[in-house]
């Protein structure tokens, strides 16, 4: 698991605010939480320096004390990085779109808006996904409340 550990060490060197001691590492899989402020730069760094050019999907979940967003990105050698950050919960949460880095992210981010009720800044206008047009406003199925 040399490569997996190298990636973590480089991240920690470049971004001192990222704590890699909590990261879970198994063969070709890394699970790492980062502070929200460091997230976008860490993602850019992983894409540019380590070839994580593919976004598998984005998982949004209601962790009870806030929302958690997990960006599953992969490289050409089969390593899957699961990069997470947490925000506050409830209404009015805004996160930034990763479209400038991953152009295939539109549907994954629209899903966060539709199911979890967060605003993704930088998404182009478009029909909501995946809920129907007549879905009642303010109802977000993936919230736990």
């Amino acid at each position, binding site marked *: 698991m040399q490569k997996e550990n190298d990636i973590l060490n480089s991240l920690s060197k470049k971004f001192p605010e990222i704590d890699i001691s909590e990261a*879970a590492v*198994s063969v*070709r*899989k890394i*699970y790492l939480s980062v502070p929200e402020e460091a997230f976008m730069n860490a993602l850019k760094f992983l894409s540019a320096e380590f070839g994580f*050019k*593919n*976004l*598998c*999907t984005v*998982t949004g*979940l209601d962790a009870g004390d806030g929302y958690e967003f*997990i960006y*599953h990105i*992969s490289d*050409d*050698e*089969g*390593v*899957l990085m*699961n990069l997470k950050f947490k925000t506050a919960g409830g209404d009015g949460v805004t996160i930034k779109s990763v479209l400038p880095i*991953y*152009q*295939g*992210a*539109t*549907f*994954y981010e629209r899903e966060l808006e*539709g199911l979890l009720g967060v605003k993704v800044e930088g998404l182009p206008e*478009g*029909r*909501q*996904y*995946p*809920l*129907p047009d007549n879905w009642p406003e303010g109802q977000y*199925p*993936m919230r736990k409340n």
Partner: protein
Amino acid sequence: MSKMIVPLGPQHPALEEPESFTLMLEGERVAAATVALGYNHRGMEKAAESRTYVQNIYLLERICGICSHSHSTCYVQTVEALAGAEVPKRAQYIRALIGELERIHSHLLWLGIAGHEIGFMTLFMYAWKDREIVMDILEMLTGNRINYGMNMLGGVRRDITPEQGQKVLEALDALEERTEYYKNVILQEQTVAIRTLGVGRLSREDGLRLGATGPVLRAAGVVKDIRKDDPTEVYNELDFKVATDEHADVYGRTVVRVTELMESYHMIRQILRQIPDGPLSVKVPNRIPAGEAAARYEAPRGEDFHYTRSNGTDKPERVKVRAPTLANLAAITHMIDGGFLADVPIVIAAIDPCFSCTDRMVRVKDASSGRDDVWNWDKLRQYSIEWHKKRGQDLGYRI
């Protein structure tokens, strides 16, 4: 020239997830295309949160009728990783066997559909007749033609006998001979080449940029296959090549799928030769320790992705699924843009979305005069075949 707007869908049973395309036409060319999705959202991820880990195998297996084993395998792999369960080798081989048989039936199904969309009905009937060989084998091994129910947490539910293995080998001989024939048809039949070469182009760069996956990406020369890149279970014990092609169009996608069929036959022979004796499963507790795990699986249509978060109870905190078709949809509007309306059916079909038998509606609207006309998919397909026939590309289809 008047511009026409053609909404295609949303009820669009050709597709795994029904979707709606809006095509802006300039003459016969598509000037812009947009896609809207979600019409078949069944809330499975939410439903998974209120079911036990075992119940979820059967729920998630039903995400897709064609690649049901891909979904259930991907899901059980996440739960087994969370529970720290080591699946016995024999079970791993049986999972791979069903996985490859599933790929064969899926690709043969697709070959038939591709033939149907371009008016090559002989190919459609041949391919679907031959697909019955592998469907019979799947039924013999699992009891079902689809939704096999083979996976359980920690292993598989059924063993295979040497007699069954022998029957699989006999079926492979027949399928291999037929697939050789299809390969020759595709490589030598001029009309197939004319209908598919240069149609629905997606370059290597665009494919990677838009996050395309599976045969769509491999047809653009990208060597990417989860079975090779992130091999789970026995895939690193099998000798196989990743099928690629450089055409980057519908023709290339056809070549890749037919080559993959040959590779799958080769892999199944190895599986049956190498499969060891031993137990079929290990015990996995009902309550899964808190944690998270992601898994990827090369489904017939591309990378299938599952993520499971556990909380120490017998039900998951969160299950996330990303089927390959969703990954390919960002690329499809790019493939349709600039092409002929007559090529839209085969371009959409070439990403291999799932197919069911209901009719679909296409509303053709003249944007300048407001003239409204309703087409169903058959009419669009008919238009496509006639349009190409007028240009001398006749595959023998008669109304």
